[in-house]
């Protein structure tokens, strides 16, 4: 099915999944604001035990459509440990025939043996944090791999039999030339991955990158990032990749299920420190700190740090906020109709950021999506 099809986008609303957060990293990247720890590999065994306990404590559910291991760096864990955790999930919830079981990996951790071990354990999708094929850019992003690690990684994953292989690329790093980005895109395309995620380098609060910019280092440039995005989009379309969300491109049949599920407000459970989950009308998050997380789980408590219940209207706003990230857009519904009548919303339609065909609303300028999201969140609660 085409990654950007309306049917796929809407079907994902009924999917369910789990997310496992693996916080370990060899080194924390300067732009990263996820829940990560550096140099605590001594906690890995304890982590694997705790996550399994957390999974086991969960009441049963339906068979899952999607399982995702993210981080941090899941590939910091030995494949046996990853397989153990996956087994715990399988025995607790069960899988379907086409369940997507995805893992994020850093190219420098990857090997043929690891690939085969993960395939045996049940994983069928891998997403490499490639970021760039330019050693200079990789260095300024604080990455530890060489461009050749990416190539080797993709090849061994394919040999081992991964059904979907994805590459993450990052663009707009200060100092990255247009030529460098162009070359990265070309090399990525040459490896023929099934899926590509292109992320604009973003300065998040509290990161080392943010501090260095405050101290005078150059910041990413809006126009530079826009140029690079447009260039890559054109090249990927040429190569047969279909954009199905702001940052995500796939060949037909390879849209990421976990992604589709979250944008469609599907339900998922989060395991591991700092993991987020979404059940029914609330979203929750786990305890961030490793030791506090361990303590809670080992004492038999849910390691939940907090949750927020959502009103119908908040869920409706969120439906648009998330759904409009997709090329398939959203059914107008209550909030969509309110947006079309609202002053701010009308300006966005007038500027052709938003298009409405009578039933569905889509964002026509994906790079301006936040303007749309803010307008949606600014809507007064309607009669939904």
């Amino acid at each position, binding site marked *: 099915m085409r990654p950007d099809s309306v049917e796929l986008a809407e079907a994902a609303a009924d999917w369910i999944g789990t*997310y496992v*957060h693996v916080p370990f990293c060899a080194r924390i990247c300067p732009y990263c604001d*996820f829940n990560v720890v550096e140099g605590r590999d001594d906690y890995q065994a304890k982590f694997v035990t705790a996550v399994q306990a957390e999974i086991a404590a969960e009441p049963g559910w339906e068979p899952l459509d999607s399982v*995702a291991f*993210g981080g941090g760096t899941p590939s910091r864990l030995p494949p046996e440990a990853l397989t153990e955790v996956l087994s715990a999930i399988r025995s607790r919830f069960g899988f379907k025939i086409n369940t997507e079981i995805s893992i994020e990996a850093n190219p420098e951790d990857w090997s043929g043996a690891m690939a085969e071990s993960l395939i045996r354990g049940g994983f069928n999708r891998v997403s490499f944090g490639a970021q760039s094929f330019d050693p200079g850019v990789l260095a300024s992003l604080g990455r530890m791999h060489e461009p050749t690690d990416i190539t080797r990684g993709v090849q061994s994953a394919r040999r081992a039999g991964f059904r979907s292989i994805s590459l993450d690329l990052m663009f707009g790093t200060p100092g990255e030339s247009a030529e460098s980005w162009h070359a990265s895109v070309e090399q990525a395309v040459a490896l023929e991955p099934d899926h590509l995620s292109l*992320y*604009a380098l*973003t300065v998040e609060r509290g990161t080392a990158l943010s501090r260095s910019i405050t101290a005078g280092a150059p910041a990413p440039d*809006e*126009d530079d*990032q*826009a140029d690079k*995005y447009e260039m890559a989009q054109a090249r990927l379309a040429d190569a047969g990749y279909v954009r199905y969300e*702001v*940052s995500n491109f796939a060949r037909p049949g390879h849209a990421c299920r*976990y*992604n589709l*599920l*979250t*944008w469609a407000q599907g339900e*998922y459970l*989060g395991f591991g420190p*700092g*993991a*987020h*989950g*979404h059940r029914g009308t609330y*979203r929750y*998050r786990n305890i961030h700190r490793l030791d506090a997380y361990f303590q809670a789980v080992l004492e038999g408590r849910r390691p939940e740090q907090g949750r*927020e219940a959502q009103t119908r209207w908040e869920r409706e706003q*969120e439906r648009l*906020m*998330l759904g409009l*990230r997709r090329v398939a857009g959203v059914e107008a519904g209550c909030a969509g109709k309110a947006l079309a009548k609202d002053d701010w919303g009308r*300006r*966005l339609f007038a*500027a052709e*950021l938003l298009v409405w065909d009578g039933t569905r609303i889509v964002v026509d300028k*994906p*790079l*301006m*999506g*936040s*303007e749309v*999201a*803010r307008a949606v*969140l*600014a809507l007064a609660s309607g009669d939904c």
Partner: protein
Amino acid sequence: MTSVSVRNFSIIAHIDHGKSTLADRMLERTGSISERNMRAQVLDSMDLERERGITIKAQAVRLDYHASDGSAVVLNLIDTPGHVDFSYEVSRSLAACEGAVLLVDAAQGVEAQTLANAYLAIEAGLEIIPVINKIDLPAADPDKVAAEIALILGVEADGVIRVSAKTGDGIEELLDRIVRDIPPPTSEGDELRALVFDSYYDSYRGVVCYVRVVDGVLAAGDTVRFSATAERHTAAEVGVLTPLAVPVAQLGPGEVGYLITGVKEIDRIRVGDTITHPGQAAVRPLPGYAEPRPMVYSGLFPSDGDDLERLREALEKLRMNDASLVFEPETSRALGFGFRCGFLGLLHMEIVRERLEREYNLDLVATAPSVAYRVTATDGSSFEIRSPQDLPDRGKIELLEEPYVRAMIIAPSEYTGTIMELVQTRRGSMDHMQYLSPERVELTYNLPLAEVVFDFFDHLKSRTRGYASLDYEPGEYRISDLVKVDILLNGQPVDAFSTITHNEKAYLYGKKMVERLRQLIPRQLFDVPIQAAIGTRVIARETVKARRKDVIAKCYGGDVSRKRKLLERQKEGKKRMKMVGSVEVPQDAFISALRVDTET
């Protein structure tokens, strides 16, 4: 009580030349206030005055002095403001005096304001007692300063008294000279004539008038008549200021004190008015003085539109003690509702703004100061405009005139060249030049007021390392080649930035404003031209390019709540934007663009 024992005097001094300290010392020497209870610089009672080291409101203090010859004398010290903006307050203080102490810093020498005020005093027929202060300073050069004073006043240099208000040196001699040289008040008759030389609003007592009795007696309980308004009131309380208010039974001829009638509205009392007893036949009013005329206008707008009422109330309260402050409602498309306010000068404007912000806790936006222009229209009518918005279309203007001032600058003579340069860039021309000493020169120029009110004084100070002093007085209106420059945002004029300026300076203003706004206005969904135009002719242009990327790159399961919060925060920021046509402008962009000028 006879008037023989009274002396009424002012002290004329430049800022920081030690007037307040001298006044404190006099209070102390005459035992009017005990040293222990003395708050330093009693006369400067407003916090702002203390901070800025200037005196804004005239005040009066009564000193009971036993002269060295044993005679008892009442000395009334009537305070005067020391800044150029307040010369009308100086003139009304002087009207209540027979003499003035001209106080000059022994290290700084004579400054322009001192000289201007000294001339006012001489014109008013006052006896001048020249005094050099701060003789204790290492940098003091009293001989040189005495020579300057002698040259200016045409007196003997050795007649100049030398004091140190700080140490108290020479204070006795000065007090004796005040008694000896300043003539006692004279009286023309027994029928009451008293001059209201100042007033202020007290929230408990209502309007308090400072009065100088010229003829007759003003007693508590009297029914008094205010000539200008023909209103009658009862003198509920009369008293003297020591400096604390002390009620007395009556004030005799020549005496200075206060009068409380219970009137609550300050506008019902005219400063400069003559008070009499009702029924007196054909009273000749005392010479009043010119009504203060605002010279500088600026729009004041609350940053938060909800504060409009509070701003109105605050302005009304300030006006109770400051008749020179005028204001009327003004509407700006860019800034909302506010008030067009008239001030005596830039310092007055700053003081009012600071008081509004500090005492009334208001956050304000002030538009660029403007002067009053005189328009003669093609239909023959003529009128004054105080805001660029009021200027008719060019085609309807026959003549446009702007106010000039006579500016007096005193500076070390080595800076003459750089001052001339500055004046030339401000469209000024020299009137005359006089050496006060081989090292110091007095320069007089005719300059457009609009060029002086902006930042002339700051530039003058920086070009002369702070040594130059400036005073100016209103001059005539002159025909000028003036144009109105409008700033347009996406084709829509932004009224707050319109200005009237000389044709030759229009381009610079336009260029500066469009550049500034380009940096302050965020990128929009479309290209936004920012133009400066004279009528339909565009003289400068910048473009704010359309925004191209405003999106969250990653938004997955773990991020949904976080990203939503981020967007909610950004949304709040957007709500504070003002729409000018279809352009979203941050509230503070206009504020920042306008503030740069008042800060430099």
